[in-house]
């Protein structure tokens, strides 16, 4: 797209090392262009609809209109005492309230961290650029702000850190924030990344989250893509886990005209494990694509992955789950499942497990299912007096129930419930039962 040259012309200037790296990333993108459907990893996701949009890189002024009342009017999943707000990828001190963070927990804007000591934030230029990963390279070139979370050894961030990424203001903005999460030995934290915006916004969010977990560290990473169904959202989560580190990833997506999320996990040392839980629910002409890669580099590493897709009307979903088991990675376990529910004849899902196994003592399993609502169950509910719309919503919710139940934050779960049922009476009933 011609707009790409304009976007690359907006790469922020910087001195020395930082400037050089940004130019190198921009050059890579210029040379390779953005991916297209001839590349295997983008076979089912065409970026052609974005070509006619005259994008420009968001500036600080573009999001100025999003003040505290406007932000409060947007749906928000998590009420935490620790909140960071990015508007169009720029940190907003006026909207953020970090509250009292526990000792050993440091949360800064990327701009502040780069100003302190740019060389101490090398993750901005990871992962190494690849043609299929050109958006990550574009993010490396453009990212001037975002969030940096660092936790010292053994320290715990028990209340979730809620990172709100809002898109606002003029149409067709490119927002390229960078999230960096570093947990030192035995540290643990829970981070919620929530994406939202106002109806009709056509921005392109190009975001990378880099996660580094030292031995024994545990991170719960919740990602909720709830942008209006007019945006494009291309994200990548890159995580490296050292010995006995654990990553729980919850990726929920129901927003965006076009959403693509890549999750790349490297289980780099023994005892590392990841649990990937995904749920996407789309309708209209929405397109959502999840690509995950779990790389078992050594033995005694474990991965478990469950993705649930719900597709209505003319929406389209893609799931590609790749598991790599390196030659010496004996004694690993890797389980993967992709379950999909088609609510309409016009909806489509392409689901594909991919196993590359070079070791022999491994326990790997994968499975994919595609189905529709059970007419017998639908009739049973309706014969009891449940309206057809509510019965369909309940059965759809039931399909996603295991994925939703695994989401450990009440507020996030309620927002997801609201999305499926149009209300959250299930939670209310649960609360009433608990109060018994």
């Amino acid at each position, binding site marked *: 797209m011609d707009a790409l040259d304009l976007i690359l012309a907006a790469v922020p200037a910087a001195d020395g090392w930082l400037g050089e790296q940004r130019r190198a990333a921009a050059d890579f993108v210029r040379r390779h262009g953005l991916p297209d459907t001839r590349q295997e990893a983008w076979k089912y996701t065409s970026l052609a609809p974005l070509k006619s949009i005259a994008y420009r890189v968001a500036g600080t002024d573009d999001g100025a209109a999003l003040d505290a009342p406007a932000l409060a009017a947007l749906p928000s999943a998590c009420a935490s005492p620790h909140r960071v707000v990015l508007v169009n990828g720029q940190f907003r001190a006026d909207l953020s309230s970090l509250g009292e963070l526990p000792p050993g927990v440091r949360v800064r804007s990327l701009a502040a961290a780069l100003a302190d000591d740019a060389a101490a934030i090398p993750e901005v230029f990871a992962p190494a650029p690849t043609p299929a990963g050109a958006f990550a390279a574009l993010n490396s070139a453009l990212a001037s702000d975002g969030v940096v979370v660092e936790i010292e050894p053994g320290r715990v961030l028990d209340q979730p850190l809620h990172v709100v990424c809002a898109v606002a203001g003029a149409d067709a903005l490119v927002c390229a924030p960078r999230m960096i999460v570093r947990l030192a030995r035995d540290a643990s934290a829970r981070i919620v990344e929530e994406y939202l915006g106002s109806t009709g916004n056509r921005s392109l969010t190009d975001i990378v989250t880099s996660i580094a977990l030292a031995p024994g560290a545990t991170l719960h990473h919740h990602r909720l893509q709830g942008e209006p169904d007019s945006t494009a959202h291309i994200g990548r989560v890159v995580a490296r886990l050292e010995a006995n580190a654990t990553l729980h990833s919850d990726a929920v997506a129901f927003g965006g005209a076009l959403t693509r999320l890549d999750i790349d996990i490297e289980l780099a040392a023994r005892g590392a494990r990841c649990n990937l839980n995904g749920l996407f629910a789309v309708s209209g002409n929405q397109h959502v694509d999840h690509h995950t890669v779990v790389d078992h580099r050594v033995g005694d590493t474990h991965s478990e992955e469950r993705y649930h897709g719900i597709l209505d009307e003319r929406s389209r979903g893609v799931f590609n789950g790749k598991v790599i088991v390196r030659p010496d990675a004996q004694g690993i376990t890797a389980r993967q499942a992709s379950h999909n529910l088609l609510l309409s004849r016009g909806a489509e899902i392409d689901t594909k497990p991919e196993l590359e196994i070079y070791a022999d003592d491994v326990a790997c399993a994968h499975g994919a299912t595609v189905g529709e609502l*059970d*007419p*017998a*169950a639908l*009739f*049973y*509910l*309706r*014969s*009891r*007096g*449940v*309206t*057809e719309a*509510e*019965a369909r919503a*309940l*059965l759809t*919710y*039931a*399909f996603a*129930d*295991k994925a939703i139940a695994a989401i450990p934050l009440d507020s996030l779960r309620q927002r997801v419930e609201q999305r499926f049922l149009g209300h959250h*009476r*299930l939670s*209310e*009933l649960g*609360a*009433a*039962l608990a109060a*018994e």
Partner: protein
Amino acid sequence: MLEIKNLHAEVAGKPILRGIDLTVRPGETHAIMGPNGSGKSTLSHVLAGREGYTVTDGSVTFNGKSLLDLEPEERAGEGVFLAFQYPVEIPGVNNTYMLKAALNGIRAYRGEPELSAVDFLKLVKARVKAVGLDEGLLNRPVNEGFSGGEKKRNEVFQMSVLEPLLAILDETDSGLDIDALKAVAEGVNALRDANRSFIVVTHYQRLLDYIVPDYVHVLSKGRIIKTGGKELALELEARGYDWLTGEAA
């Protein structure tokens, strides 16, 4: 209350009901008996509004309204309840929640306010004891992993919460041992009153020892071929159906 006139229905082009006439007045219990394939379950499903059945002739009027023109949930709103022969397992849908959605759906249909979660739970607790359903099953997914007896008891429990005007019991006795049968029958009998009517569909007379009907109808090849009192069921038990259907054993 319920008036079925000349009801004809077919499944996949095959005629199953060939002219049923039946009148049920408030407070009455009617047993529908008949050999396999006589159309008993089809009649239950047509009354409840299940898809896949085509009514080709006749009418069903319930308290002045044409039942066949209503959606299944609207029939429930009017006060019709079907206890399933094979209650459906619905993983992921909580039993209590389903019942709350059902009760509030019916109340909304009638223009009544919703019950709060607290009031609803009070009602449920009282009724679950009355029908002897294990309280632990309330918070399980609908019928999932329930034994045959638990499923049927759950049907009666749902009935007791939804308080229908007309309950259709479709082969409720199938797959039950004698103790479960008695317990289910007791639950049903506790709900019998001057305003509530029952249609008890069964192959065997056994259930009618416990749920004693006012009328017994014999269905064969899609028609009611004989109607009598409760003693007709005993006669059927002793003699089988062949003397009525005119077929050799």
